[in-house]
């Protein structure tokens, strides 16, 4: 059906795909697994014409084909749903689905026919969605259905799905898998890119495992198991269990009372939230992304205008609701942001410069005169962080951009730990980070907790948050809807709460 033969693709100095061979058989669900940065998405984006391979060929239905743009891929019956949805948020469902393949003539768009066609497809594949709804008013799950319909509307025979479950609750994942099985039954071929082994085993017929831009194996799912796949992915035995002693909990460090956060147009992203984080514990917050976690953390870090907040934030009893971000850092709040490129680093600045962000105006980084940066002090600090947090490469003159995601993250974590915080706000600490670095980061977080720091952890990875947290809150549409003991609660229970159920 679809075959990638000897595909090689380079981005600058990075070899993203190194002689990749993948064979997808018709009528199957084919999983492509690998760690972040293993080259899964790159390979599939080449198949969809988004990138052009440096060498190698793509075979569709037994014939070598030139695929220079998504337009070509669509013509050959290849559809793709990207990890970040490719939808125009101000337009309607119907407009998005027909875009580029519009019914009617060049001078008259037949939206009526579009609507009927879409309703037909909706029923056939059990993808209920209102064709007249505007995308930005839809939930992520519904938007995903629109993406699937978009591919089906173009008569896609092969659907490539890039990390489709990242945005779904466990229950939605089950529903989604049922839809995929239905598609397979109707003769469609599905390629699913993921890094979650449980999903691979649950849904796929065959698996291709990738590591460092290469294919390390292609096996039938029934002949393999999670342990074997993990070993192939990482290249060594992995133990993905966090080892931590019981928490030695002290008094409340942070207390949040009736906190609400509104956007400038008045919608409440965080709605009347109250909780405490005590010294020496990790408080986890689980939830489907986009349910107010970002706003909550940013409100606590002082990154949201006080005018948009109601309620009170107290640090060791002191009201800091109206204290700005710099003063909050001086009071002992450190922040590891969810998006390290947006909030965490200046990508074109050197590691040394990045390592002093947030302390760049005070001793010891600024010399006694209080005016000039002390180059030696900066180097010393940067070298310390690079060593303690195993940042590689170790050359502190390199721009942050030159580092892998995991090393960038370790640099940020090192910088924030260097503040010796009383409270650490940490969001998605291991997103886009390889498994080795994940183990390292987890150990560091637990060590900080054991040193008496209060840690507030937000993560979209349910396994991560349940493994690390001593207590777990569940957030849904800006409200805290559950408070569970992660040692006792099951994934199903937590998933149900994440979806807004009880």
């Amino acid at each position, binding site marked *: 059906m679809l075959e990638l033969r000897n595909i090689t693709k380079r981005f600058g100095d990075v070899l993203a795909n190194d002689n990749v061979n993948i064979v997808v058989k018709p009528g199957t669900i084919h999983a492509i697994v690998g760690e972040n940065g293993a080259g899964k998405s790159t390979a599939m984006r080449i198949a969809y014409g988004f990138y052009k391979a440096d060498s190698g060929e793509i075979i569709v239905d037994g014939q070598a084909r030139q695929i220079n743009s*998504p337009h070509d891929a669509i013509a050959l019956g290849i559809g793709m749903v990207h990890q970040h949805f490719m939808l125009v*948020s*101000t*337009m309607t469902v119907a*407009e998005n689905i027909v*875009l*580029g393949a519009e019914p009617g003539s060049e001078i008259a768009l037949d939206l009526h026919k579009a609507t009927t066609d879409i309703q037909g497809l909706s029923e056939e594949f059990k993808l209920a969605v209102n064709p007249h709804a505007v995308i930005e008013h839809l939930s992520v799950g519904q938007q995903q259905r629109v993406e699937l319909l978009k591919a089906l509307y173009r008569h896609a025979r092969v659907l490539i799905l890039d990390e489709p479950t990242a945005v779904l609750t466990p229950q939605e994942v089950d529903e989604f898998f049922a839809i995929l099985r239905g598609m397979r039954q109707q003769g469609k071929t599905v390629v699913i890119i993921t890094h979650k082994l449980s999903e691979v085993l649950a849904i796929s017929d065959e698996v291709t495992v990738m590591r460092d831009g290469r294919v390390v194996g292609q096996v039938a799912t029934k002949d393999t198991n999670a342990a074997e796949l993990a070993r192939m992915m990482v290249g060594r035995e992995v133990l993905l269990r966090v080892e931590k002693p019981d928490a030695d909990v002290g008094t409340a460090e942070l207390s949040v009372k009736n906190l609400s956060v509104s956007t400038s147009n008045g919608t409440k992203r965080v709605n009347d939230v109250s909780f405490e984080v005590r010294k020496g514990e990790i408080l986890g917050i689980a939830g489907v992304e986009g349910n107010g976690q970002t706003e909550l953390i940013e409100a606590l870090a002082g990154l949201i205008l006080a005018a948009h907040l109601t309620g009170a934030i107290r640090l060791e009893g002191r009201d800091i609701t109206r204290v700005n971000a710099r003063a909050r850092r001086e009071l002992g709040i450190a922040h590891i942001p969810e998006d390290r490129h947006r909030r965490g680093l200046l990508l074109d600045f050197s590691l040394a410069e990045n390592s002093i962000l947030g302390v760049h105006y005070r001793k010891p980084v600024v010399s006694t005169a209080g005016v000039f940066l002390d180059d030696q002090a900066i180097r010393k600090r940067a070298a310390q962080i690079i060593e303690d947090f195993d940042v590689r490469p170790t050359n502190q003159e390199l721009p942050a951009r030159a580092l892998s995601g995991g090393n960038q993250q370790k640099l940020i974590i090192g910088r924030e730990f260097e503040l010796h915080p009383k409270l650490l706000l940490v969001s998605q600490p291991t997103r886009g980070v390889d498994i080795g670095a994940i183990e390292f980061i987890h150990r560091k977080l637990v060590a900080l907790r054991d040193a008496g720091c209060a840690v507030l952890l937000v993560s979209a990875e349910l396994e991560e948050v349940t493994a690390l947290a001593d207590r777990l809150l569940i957030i849904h549409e800006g409200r805290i809807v559950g408070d569970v003991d992660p040692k006792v609660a099951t994934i199903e229970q937590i998933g149900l709460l994440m979806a807004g159920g009880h």
Partner: protein
Amino acid sequence: MRDLFTIALIWSTVRLATPLILAALGGLFSERSGIINIALEGKMLAGAFTAAAVTYAADSKLHLGAASPWIGLLAGMSAGIFIAAIYAIVCIRYKADQVVSGTAINILMIGVPGFLSGALFLSSGSTPQIPKEQLIPWAPIIIAFAMVPITWYVLYRTPFGLRLRSVGENPEAADAAGVSVSRIRYSGVLIAGALAGMGGAYLSIGQSSLFTRNMTSGRGFIALAALIFGKWRPVQTLLACLLFGFTEAVSIQMQGAIKLPAFFATLLRQTPGDDIPVQFIQMVPYLLTIIVLAGFIGSSRPPRALGIPYQKEK
């Protein structure tokens, strides 16, 4: 004061709004595709000069008579398209900064017509007078107003319009859906060139009878303001253009018609009862532009990808 608001004033509003409507609708096509159109001014100037020069030549040298202004109008549009093509290549093919290259075109077009008129007509800055019967006072007005429903229809009821809007909002999504982002953007910018060129042509061979140096005097920017004030939608943009046209019409009627109140007289060191200084009245439309842009648009949301060149592989 009452006799100010007459049929004449309405008529004057319509005439003054026409070049703004043409340019603003042109800008709409370009900006909805994601390309900022700060070069509207330059395109209008190109259109105005070319239309006047070609009409004059067609009439007095080729003796084409009544066809002359039509040829001039087409030539003005072509000049707008030509300038737009340069702008499009620079912005789309070479991904240059749209504000900087647009500004360069505006500055260039202040100089080029003067240079060309010097070379062609031995006059610095203006073209020779065109006889009154060879002007085209009506057609551009009709076209401008007809273009409003046409633009609406194209934007919301044709595949091209759907693609145009999607490319301006989320070019990656459009690309993923098999739409050629650059082709749509070229179309948008070229349509803008044609319409702005026509708007300029109307100034030189419709409203007046020759091209004078910098005769657009900022109308391209006012059109851009109207487009923003009109939230990048055809009907609202029309209304914004009419508002600006109206202010200009009022300011023209006010010249000499209103006496200077005592307070302002003292402020401006003039005798009470004098006419309001012409310069002050002429300032009003521009002042309004600033006030509108600064104060009233508030939540006007531009196409999301406006001004951002589309990079396929990141």
